[in-house]
């Protein structure tokens, strides 16, 4: 979606919001519009306009959710759609409002979207609390203060090309949400008046979540709104971060809550998961997170050879050893497979090992060395099978070649004998 989208370029054919009795921040939006009967003259007339600002909204009529549901232009813009006479259609007496002011948009949308009685006739499963949530959001709070340069409904959903969140071409489809947010939040010029960074999108796009969602289109990966909320978008506080991350990483959050780190983190007001994993730039954790080296986050608090230091070093040794085994098994299986050998059993065994390895990585959030060591031993035992499969496959590979060589060598005397016989058969003819 573009800020300069048609939504914001609909002509101001009526200068003021005459007759539009909406107060920004009102908790009781007006009732939904009555259905306008008769043919709608807005679209044919606007489609014929040469000024793109006037004609562009009609391009989306075939896709727009509202248009497809039977809502007409006048349901939002007012006016009389039954007449093709511009003066009459756009007259103040017909309730024409033209382009709604950003301050008015939440109330405008809420006329329908906050009415359970109205919405149930279109989409019973859609919530009707967006309006209330919006005013609790940072965007809503700033809009209430009269700031127009904040996101309201049309900023994210567009004005005339509104599509369902499950439609891949929608601005609020999960894969598109980061770019929709970044349109404002990634623009340093636009965000100049706000004391927040504008590198979130760049960091997110490079993170494990961003790569999963944007590159692999993994819809299980979180977009901005999964942590920040959508209609009630606010930054999560330090004490609630574990809950936000724990929505997906439930085991990690539970183990962390019981770990020796939970209390000191809470006491010092440290933002839990973010301390080690950061927020927008969440990289794939490597064993080096525990190695107490220069890049290890542990050394920010732990001193050399204290109990935490030693636990971290031991965890690093175990997890890096298994990480090495994982790579070794993968390489060995790849090698055998490249040589044309079947290693599917080894692949299944490697999957079992990786499941244990993943459980081990999860267990690292408990910082309980005894539990961690026991799981590491179990995983180590599982790594033996794919390695053995690869080894057997390589042995079989060499056996086949040696077998071929032996069979060729054994064939030679037979071939020689046949050749000798052919040479010594009496010719005729």
């Amino acid at each position, binding site marked *: 979606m573009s800020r300069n989208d048609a939504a914001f370029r609909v002509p101001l054919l009526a200068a003021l919001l005459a007759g539009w009795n909406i107060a920004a921040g009102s908790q009781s939006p007006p009732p939904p519009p009555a259905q306008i009967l008769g043919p709608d003259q807005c679209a044919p007339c606007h489609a014929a306009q040469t000024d793109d600002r006037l004609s562009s909204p009609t391009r989306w009529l075939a896709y727009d959710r509202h248009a497809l549901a039977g809502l007409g232009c006048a349901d939002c813009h007012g006016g009389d759609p039954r007449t093709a006479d511009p003066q009459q259609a756009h007259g103040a007496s017909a309730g024409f409002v033209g382009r709604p002011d950003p301050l008015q948009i939440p109330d405008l949308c809420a006329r329908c979207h906050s009415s359970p009685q109205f919405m149930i006739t279109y989409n019973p499963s859609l919530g009707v609390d967006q309006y209330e949530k919006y005013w609790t959001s940072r965007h809503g709070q700033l809009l209430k203060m009269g700031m127009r340069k904040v996101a309201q409904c049309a900023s994210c959903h567009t004005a005339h090309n509104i599509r369902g969140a499950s439609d891949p071409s929608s601005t609020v489809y999960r894969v598109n949400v980061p770019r929709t947010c970044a349109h404002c939040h990634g623009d340093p010029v636009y965000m100049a008046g706000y004391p927040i960074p504008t590198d979130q999108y760049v960091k997110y796009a490079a993170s494990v979540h961003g790569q999963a969602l944007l590159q692999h289109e993994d819809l299980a990966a979180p977009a901005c709104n999964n942590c920040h909320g959508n209609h009630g978008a606010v930054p999560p506080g330090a004490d609630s971060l574990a809950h936000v991350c724990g929505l997906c990483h439930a085991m990690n959050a539970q183990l962390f809550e019981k770990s020796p780190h939970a209390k000191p983190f809470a006491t010092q007001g440290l933002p839990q998961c973010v301390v080690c994993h950061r927020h927008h730039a969440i990289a794939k954790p490597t064993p080096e997170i525990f190695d107490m080296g220069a890049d290890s986050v542990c050394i920010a608090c732990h001193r050399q050879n204290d109990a935490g230091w030693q636990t971290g070093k031991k965890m690093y040794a175990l997890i890096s050893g298994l990480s090495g085994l994982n790579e070794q098994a993968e390489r060995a299986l790849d090698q055998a497979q490249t040589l044309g050998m079947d290693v*599917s059993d080894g692949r299944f065994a490697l999957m079992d090992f990786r499941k244990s390895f993943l459980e081990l990585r999860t267990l690292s959030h408990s910082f309980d060395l005894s539990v961690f060591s026991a799981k590491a031993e179990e995983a180590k035992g599982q790594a033996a099978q794919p390695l053995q499969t690869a080894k057997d496959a390589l042995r079989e590979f060499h056996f086949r070649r040696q077998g071929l060589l032996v069979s060729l060598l054994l064939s030679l005397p*037979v071939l020689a004998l*046949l*050749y000798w016989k*052919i040479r010594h058969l009496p010719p*005729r003819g």
Partner: protein
Amino acid sequence: MSRSPDHAPGGLGRLWAQRLFDWFDRRYQIAGLIEFLRHKDVPITGMSFLYYFGGIALFLFVVQVVTGVLLLMYYVPSADQAYESVHNIMAKIHFGWLIRSLHAWSANLLILSVMIHLFSVFFLRAYRNPRELTWATGFGLLGLVFAFGFSGYLLPWNQRAFFATKVGTDILGQLPVVGTFLLTVLRGGEEVTGATLGRFFGLHVAILPGLATLLVGGHLLLIQRQGMSHPAAWLKQPPEQRRSMPFFPNFLARDLLLWFLILNAVAAVAVFWPAELGDKADPFGAAPAGIKPEWYFLSQYQVLKWMPARIGPISGERVGILAMMFAGLAVFLLPFCDRAVEGDPRRRWLDFFGVAAVTGLILLTVVGYVSQ
């Protein structure tokens, strides 16, 4: 009782061999059979190497039968277990990989040999009177090896085979009048399912081998009865300059040497490039990227690809299929139509047609292989 000079006594081994021969001969009169086998001569010309392809095809047919029977011991013809059983053959059964790879590679070589054999018979004019039926049975065998290839391709029940069969049977469905009926009969329904696998299995291991055995037997019997065809150029030579060799044992010994070499070569190919299996068939999955038929169907596939959507009121694909069927029919009827004598200008046309057909087949196959 006739005694062949080759069976004259000489040493203990020969004595026992002679006794064994006599034992059988008294009961089954095999001396006459040997004489029947012996009377065939093979003319020696510059193109004599072409005579080996019939024998190679016969040998590879036997390899197909032997390896096919071995595969049958472990193969399970059901949509649930076919893929797993082939995987089991490739991964768990001792030398299963070798047997399946020999089966797959020798099948390809068999089709190639039969095609070369057919074209060599065409260019040597060996199909002409009185060998019309030998040609007809040979042409039938060519059709059968294609049918073997098409039906056998589905049996591993992998993704590639599934979609190739879907496309292949769709093409058959384009035939006028009988197309829909044929498609339904072959698939066992409207779609490619486990029922199709059952039918293709039945075709591949029972119906086609039965027909092939009958045709191979008839083909060999006719050749043995009529002897080898003598090329015109060989017949033109004065009788004293015509060179030939007895089929038995001279030519057969050469055949044996060649078969042994081919067996070793196929084994080497099987070791270095074992037959692939791919992913299990998933009717709801996407067709594998760049899916194409096997090389022996590539030329037909390319022709159909080049056909326009419609030619007049008929779909281009249907016109292409009918054109190929008529071309096949013309080739089948060739011995009954070719009455041209040596030196007749019509012979040049036939030679030109043959060269164009071979060149076209090779070019279409190459284009089909490299095209996207």
